[in-house]
Structures are given as structure tokens and as C-alpha cells.
């Protein structure tokens, strides 16, 4: 495990934000931290990246303790925070060279590294322009490039695609996939479940200061049940008859019945045939695959606010 956090507690005044969070990230994987607004994602990332100390609990990154060996941890990680950290009055290139110099690359080496990254993130045309003239997507890309100057082992990305249009988001996803394929470990937070679904090997959902669920995207989805057919009826009496027919309990909606399904056309046929033979009219049919949204909603609708001490 390249990141090992155990029993993280953090409170700001009387607001408990983290209340015993454990995280384990395997080297070379993408790890996504999901959670509603205010769940403590940024707080967690700040602790993992040495910017904030946990009140209790411990974190090791690449074997180093984040509190006692902060400088060593900083030597192997990089952080792209939730708000973009760039100098508007410097050019894209100057921003990158500055970080290279701070990483103690010589002037020529820092220049070469900047050029490489500008090419990789498609910013060569804009590199001599001041960052204040960049679009949101360009800024995000440059911001990510800034954290790659040092060739870190573990990259922390706090909401890397928030506010990006779909095409910039795809570009960012491609960049992240490329990093992982070269062996880098990525820890990201996101509010977009699709993002976690596409990128993450492992997802941890935090809510109310605790880990509410964790596992692969598929494992999480199967927690909220498998695929099903939603049958909508015109009147409740029809639903009651259908429920008896298939032996499934009625749900919360008096007009919609969820029938477990394997998703095949064959099963759909069978269901409709049985309804026709039994003379139960059905108004609409839709097939429903569980998404991370279902997981998210089912696990975060209770205890949204941090626990008060």
C-alpha cells in the first residue's frame, strides 16, 4: 500500500469533520474519494499531503509518516488542489519553470521539463501568454502539468474536472489514464460519479466523517441491488396483481414495480408474456441498471451534516 491512513480524526472547533477514516491505496492504481459537499474530501486530501495535521490517526505515504517526515513525503507526492494555483501574471511557461527551479532542476533542465509538459498538455501555442488570458480548461491542464514537474510517485487531485466542459473533461481523463499506465498512483476526489466509475480501481465513499462504503465500482453497485425492469401501471390494482404474479414486494411508488432481471431481451419477453396471459395491462417498461448515483444517493441521504461534538 503506497498510502495507508488509519483512524483519521479531524475537527474544526466543534465541527467533527473526520471521525475515524481508514484508507488504503495500492501502488499504481487510481483511488477515488467520493462524498457530498462538505463530506471532508478536501480535509482528507490536505492531511494526506502534509498540509494539515490529523487530530488523531496516522498516515504513511510511500512509507513516510506525513507528520514526522513531512519533507520526505513532499518529495514523492504532488498536489493539484481544488482551486487552481497559478500565477496569472506569469506565462504558462514561466509558471512551470518556477516549479522546476524549486525542485532544484538546473535552468536548462527546468526549461526542457516545461517544454515537455506544455507539449503533452497541448499548451505550446499559449505558453508565452500570461495565464490570465487562459480559459478554464487550459488553466486546469496547466495546473495538472505543474504537479507533474517533479515526476511524483503519488498524485493527489482534488476535484480535477469540476467546472470543465465535457471535452476538456475527457482530455483530463485521458491525461490521468496515461499517468496511471506509466505507474503513477492517483488519488482523486470527485463529485462526478461517472468520473469515479470510469477511472477508479477503488472507490471510497465518505459521509458524515466516516467511510460509508468502499470497493470497486461494480462491487458498490451490486450493494444497491442488481439490474431490474421497472413496470409502470395505470392503476394500483394492476400493480398488486403483477406483484403477486412475480412474487416481488411493491416498492415505494404505488404505480411502479421493480422486477429483478438479468438484462436479457429473453427475460423481458417472458415478463411481458406472463403479464399478457394474466391479463394485467402494463403502461410502460424501462430497464434500470444501478449506477454509482444510486449508491451515492442511498448512502448519503442520511447524516449529511458532520457530527457535532
Amino acid at each position: 500500500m503506497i498510502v495507508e491512513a488509519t483512524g483519521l480524526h479531524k475537527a474544526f472547533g466543534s465541527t467533527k469533520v473526520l471521525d475515524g477514516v481508514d484508507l488504503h491505496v495500492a501502488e499504481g492504481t487510481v483511488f477515488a474519494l467520493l462524498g457530498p459537499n462538505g463530506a471532508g474530501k478536501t480535509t482528507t486530501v490536505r492531511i494526506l499531503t502534509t498540509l494539515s495535521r490529523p487530530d488523531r490517526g496516522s498516515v504513511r505515504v510511500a512509507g513516510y509518516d506525513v507528520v514526522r517526515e513531512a519533507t520526505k513525503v513532499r518529495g514523492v507526492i504532488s498536489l493539484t488542489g481544488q482551486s487552481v494555483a497559478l500565477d496569472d501574471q506569469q506565462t504558462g511557461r514561466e509558471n512551470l519553470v518556477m516549479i522546476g527551479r524549486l525542485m532544484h532542476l538546473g535552468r536548462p533542465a527546468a526549461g526542457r521539463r516545461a517544454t515537455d509538459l506544455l507539449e503533452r498538455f497541448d499548451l505550446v501555442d499559449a505558453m508565452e501568454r500570461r495565464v490570465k488570458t487562459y480559459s478554464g480548461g487550459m488553466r486546469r491542464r496547466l495546473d495538472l502539468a505543474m504537479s507533474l514537474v517533479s515526476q511524483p510517485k503519488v498524485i493527489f487531485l482534488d476535484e480535477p474536472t469540476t467546472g470543465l466542459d465535457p471535452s476538456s473533461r475527457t482530455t483530463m481523463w485521458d491525461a490521468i489514464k496515461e499517468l496511471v499506465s506509466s505507474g503513477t498512483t492517483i488519488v482523486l476526489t470527485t463529485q462526478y460519479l461517472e468520473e469515479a466509475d470510469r477511472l477508479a480501481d477503488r472507490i471510497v465513499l465518505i459521509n458524515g466523517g466516516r467511510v460509508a462504503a468502499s470497493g470497486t465500482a461494480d462491487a458498490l453497485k451490486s450493494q444497491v441491488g442488481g439490474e431490474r425492469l421497472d413496470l409502470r401501471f395505470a392503476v394500483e390494482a394492476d400493480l398488486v396483481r403483477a406483484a403477486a404474479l412475480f412474487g416481488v414486494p411493491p416498492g415505494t411508488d404505488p404505480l411502479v414495480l421493480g422486477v429483478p432481471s438479468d438484462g436479457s431481451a429473453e427475460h423481458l419477453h417472458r415478463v411481458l408474456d406472463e403479464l399478457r396471459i394474466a391479463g394485467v395491462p402494463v403502461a410502460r417498461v424501462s430497464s434500470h441498471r444501478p449506477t454509482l448515483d444510486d449508491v451515492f444517493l442511498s448512502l448519503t441521504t442520511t447524516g449529511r451534516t458532520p457530527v457535532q461534538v
Partner: protein
Amino acid sequence: MSTIAVHGGVRNAVSDSMTMIGRSIRLSRRNAETLVMSIVLPLLMMSLFVYVFGGAIDTGTRYINYVVPGTLLLCVGYGAASTAMSVADDMTSGMIDRLRSLPIRSSAVLTGHVVASVVRNLLSTTVVIGAAVAMGFRPDATVTDWAMAAGLLLLYVLALSWLAAGLGVIAKSVESASTLSFLMLFLPYLSSAFVPTDTMPSFLRAVSENQPITPVIETVRGLLTGTPIGDTGWIALAWCVGLLAGSFIFAAWLFRRRTHG
């Protein structure tokens, strides 16, 4: 072994500071508006005092000769005040987190802003002195006098810049940094910068004679125009060194506090 590590540490610290100084100077150069204002405002004040109020103020000398040292300090105040805003900008944007997540001593960011502030002030002071000479300022200082005056002003600029950096660290926003540093700009008016203190009501007079700016002004004035200095020179030096030490510790302590935890 340990000496090598320490040596490498010092070399890296110097190199990080140089990088951050380069950055801050570049940012200052591109923030032309602030730079121009820090020159234009003192120039306007000087013209106002020389041409409008000067005739009515009796200083026992030609008023322009009296007013230039105060104007220089005012100018330095403006120059240092913008440091508070630059520091606050870094502390409240994501920049400080980015720097802190690197394996460097992130306080280099403060050193960068302070040194850039000194460089800006060097420039603006030179312009103001040039303008003053054009307006009839006739110093009778020797090279040594000039060097001593410059040295004292340098200490004063450094002290004020570190103070401003500290204010920038505690400020919750760039706007509040600008409000805090406004207080620094106010002090020169309550001194012998523009009018001799003996015409002030006794309370104000006590304030202005015992605040750091008056001895600094009197000393610079003495060095440049030959008015008697007496022991104000030592008082000014003590103030500047004390202020510098105090504000450096203040800024460093606040920075540590804000970036730990």
C-alpha cells in the same frame, strides 16, 4: 556528514529564495498599476506640500529641502504596503498549498515578496529624489552622508516590508490586507514629515516625537541638508533595527502558525 546536509540545506534555501525573488520581481514589474501608483502618490503629495501648503509652513529652511525626507518615507510606506496585498494573495489562493506541498521551505515566498518590495522601493525612491531635484531640492550631502541616509532608509524599508508581509499573512483577504497596511501609511502624517512638530497640540506632539518615523526623518534630513542630528541618529538606527527584528519575527511566527495544522 551532517555538515554536508546542512550545507546542501543552506544552498537549497538560497536557491529557493532566489527563485521566489525572481518571481516576485516579475510579478511587480507586470503589476505596473501598483508600481506607478507607489511613485505617483508620493510625487503628488510632495508637489501639494511644496506648491500649495509650503508657503504657509515655516520650517526655517526652504520648504522643499524640509519636505523631501518625509516624502521619501511616505513613498517607502506605499511601496511596502502593496507587499501586504501580494502576500495575502498567495496565502488565500491555492498558491501557498502548492508551495507547501513541495519539499522546500515555503517561507521563501515571503522572502521573495520582501526583496521585491526593496527593489521596487529603490526604484521609486530614486524617481522621487530625481523629481525633487527638478523641483529645486538642493542637498549638500557628502557621499558618506548619502550612503548613511541610504543605509538607514534601506533598514526602514526592510522593516516595513517584513511588517507588511506579516500583515499579509494574517489578513483574511487581499482587501483586508490593504486596509491593515493603510495604518502604516498614516504614520508619516503624524510626524515631522510635513510640518515641524512644535506647532502641534501637545498630545499629538508627544505622539509624533516618540514614534519611529520622526527620528528617521530627522536623521535623513540632517544627513542630506545639514540640519543638526544630535543623538536622533542613534535613536533612528535603534528604531529601525528593533522594528526590523520585531517585524521579521512577527512575520515568521505568523507564517509558521498559519501553515502548521
